């Protein structure tokens, strides 16, 4: 603590300088500062410290700072809105696609042999998805493909009636994109 005063006295001196002391004690401290050299010296030092603190100016605020802050906040807000909108679309689509896939797999339990030549059966272009064996095979052999958001979106919008060719095209484009294969 202050070398010249007891800690509790120094607290009172500081509170007196700040105008925070009860009236009776304030009068007493005032007298001590007037009559006691140690109190007087401590008070002088603290007043000088006040001068130093007051003289220390803060840097000027750039004129455009408030505008930058508002613009940045709106940017954050817009970004969040876009993300939320995307989630609102993607989550139900993904859920619907997962259910549809599960139903298709369930219906496909007595799986026929893949094909006579042992390879994957060719997929006929232009055939509608609904209820066709070729489509079922396509789904089973392209599980990863159906986890793709864009594929799910096309499926959902088309109500299941979409060309296999179209789906394949989307899947190929997506697989070609780094980091977005599934």
């Amino acid at each position: 603590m202050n070398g010249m005063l007891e800690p509790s006295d120094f607290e009172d001196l500081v509170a007196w300088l700040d105008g925070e002391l009860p009236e009776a004690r304030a009068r007493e401290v005032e007298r001590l500062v007037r009559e006691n050299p140690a109190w007087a010296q401590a008070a002088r030092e603290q007043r000088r410290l006040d001068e130093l603190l007051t003289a220390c100016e803060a840097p000027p605020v750039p004129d455009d700072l408030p505008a930058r802050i508002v613009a940045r906040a709106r940017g954050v807000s817009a970004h969040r809105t876009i993300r939320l909108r995307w989630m609102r679309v993607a989550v139900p689509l993904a859920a619907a696609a997962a259910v549809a896939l599960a139903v298709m797999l369930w219906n496909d339990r007595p799986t026929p042999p893949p094909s006579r030549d042992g390879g994957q059966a060719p997929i006929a272009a232009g055939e509608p998805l609904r209820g066709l064996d070729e489509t079922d095979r396509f789904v089973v052999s392209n599980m990863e493909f159906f986890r793709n958001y864009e594929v799910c979106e096309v499926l959902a919008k088309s109500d299941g009636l979409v060309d296999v060719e179209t789906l394949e095209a989307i899947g190929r484009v997506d697989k070609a994109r780094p980091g977005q294969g599934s």
Partner: protein
Amino acid sequence: MLRLRDGDDGAFAELVQRNTPKVHGLVFRFLGDPQAVDDLTQEVFLRIYRTAGRYQPAAKFSTWMYRIVANLAFNVLRTRRKGHAVPLEVSDTRDGETFFADVRDDKTHAPHQRLADDELQAQVARAVAELPENQKIAIVLNKYEDKSYEDIAEVLDCTVMAVKSLLSRARENLRVSLEKYIEHK
């Protein structure tokens, strides 16, 4: 703040306009140098913006804001102390010079006097910034925001007596740090 909480986006612009000088000054006092002050000021308002929906007027808005400023500033200082890179390190002075070179000189001091004043200001700012966290909040709110002991107690969530003690310790620490400027007036 209540308007912002209730979705009035225009209220945010008003709030920023009104409080930017105050927040900017506080950030500088807490950090002790002009580096990162603009960026951290932005972060304070973004925090306010993001959390506006959860704002409860249990305490004064200024109390809530002071806490946000102090928390963010002290996070930066803790990171600096650990020697990690501080993400908010871009000084926004337009000519790339430090703040003290940019302060307008309306007192027409001679260059050597100006230099001495600048150095003194930097020393004072650093001495305040080096105080323990609660002492720093107490002295900054008291000296630069004219807050009463009671208001400071509310921000720090402590008693008025504790504030009295914090302020006397802060002043004693500052007296020691700035001894040569106090004794050789």
